[in-house]
């Protein structure tokens, strides 16, 4: 399994989840979990995804998601999940 964490940060607006998940569906990336919160007036969303079936290289997915975010005035980052697991788990 090729697990990644997608984070979306910015002003809340209509269609954030719809557009992001449409992109993921198109690229055969499976969403395992979604959570969201508001910190300091900013919308924060996190998706845990499985990109094992995705044909595109990881780097390209990250670039395309960032571009999708730019179009909505949001910062979208896609990172491999190990950085979070290693940092927060003994």
């Amino acid at each position: 399994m090729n697990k990644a964490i997608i984070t979306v940060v910015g002003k809340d607006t209509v269609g954030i989840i719809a557009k992001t998940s449409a992109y993921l569906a198109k690229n055969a990336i499976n969403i395992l979990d979604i959570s969201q919160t508001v910190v300091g007036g900013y919308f924060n969303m996190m998706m845990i995804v499985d990109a094992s079936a995705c044909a595109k290289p990881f780097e390209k997915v990250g670039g395309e998601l960032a571009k999708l975010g730019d179009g909505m005035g949001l910062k979208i980052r896609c990172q491999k999940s190990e950085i979070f697991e290693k940092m927060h788990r003994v």
Partner: protein
Amino acid sequence: MINISEVIETNKMILEENLDVRTITMGISLLDCADSSLAKTCDNVYGKLMRYAKDLVKTGDEIGRDFGVPIVNKRVSITPAAIVGSACCRKPGDFVRLAKTLDRAAKRLGVNFIGGYSAVVSKGMTPADELLIHSIPDALSETEHICSSVNVGSTKTGIDMDAVRLMGEIVKKTAAKTKSRDSIGCAKLVVLCNAPDDNPFMAGAFHGVTEGDVVVNVGVSGPGVVNYVLGRSCRGVSFEVLCETIKKTAFKITRVGQLVAQEASKRLGVPFGIIDLSLAPTPAIGDSVADILKEIGLEHPGAPGTTAALALLNDQVKKGGVMASSYVGGLSGAFIPVSEDQGMIDAVNAGALTIEKLEAMTCVCSVGLDMIAVPGDTPASTISGIIADEAAIGMVNQKTTAVRIIPVASKREGDTVEFGGLLGRAPVMGVSRFSCEKFIARKGRIPAPIHSFKN
């Protein structure tokens, strides 16, 4: 399962608090490149560096993108050049040619520094060691990416005072040779005692002869993260809470380094060596060890209490870091350079911090007098005296100490010099005007200290 607050915390460290992996340094043994012909040796060295490190920069960038954490520097460290060139270098100029070969390789590989233009002379100098040391001023003025270091002592051997005397002169000559660029050559030259074989940080990195053929070492950083955490949650709290917080933060920072190191090792097909869990500041605002000391409760570094605060910080960083990685090495602790840390620069300008106080601080932190600009007319013997003092602290306390001092040609106390980039800018600090010339003029070495009767 990872939760959203943990993800936000990690990304805040990266995006707002300057968390980065400071360097992936590939250590490469050049022992098998030595030949009695200089041309052949240079060819062998260039060829091996190209073969082993060709994917280093690309792989480092890919790992950075995959995990979303900046990997600032990709570097190479080599077997001390004095050993590599000992069979073929007959004059200092021969070593300069080897340095230029290394510089050419660095450019081609895209690494920002190659460390290991070095001699390890803790007990005595071979003819090749002396030739290399004499070549340092030319080598550093005629190359861009070479870092040089000389280890002049150790706890086991004592201090080679002939090398200490020579290094005072070499530092001055290097300053003169790079006069037109504020004596920047000296920023790439460090004199060490108890130098580790696996240090990934420049300018003191070299690939010691105790190491294998090739290895990947990683230096983490993150003073900004510690500083922000202390500012958010530790004002006025007890020492217990303070220490616990630093420890936990150091653990998190080091885990990122550990992950990057394992990944780099896997992707490059090179064994993982060590994580150096140092707090390495940069001139960026907020990325400062001095600011941590201020957050602990000092008006400026240099105030009474500084040595104690730094001792505490250094120890907690190690305690948190060793839990995060099974292989910790290199320098591992808090760095206290002056020019690379805005808080240190402010402290010098405020009159709070002197070389003597910095010297005391080096007794309890990971390295030594680092990136300190002094007046250009400081005598060579005084620089040797400063080196000897630091080496003595290292020798007696069984720790690494170092001196990277820049006697900036034609600058006086109170002036400022700009080195640019990660090297930052430095206020020129005052040096004691009292002489140690007769002490430094003595020949031979200071004996190793007794290892028992530690009371």
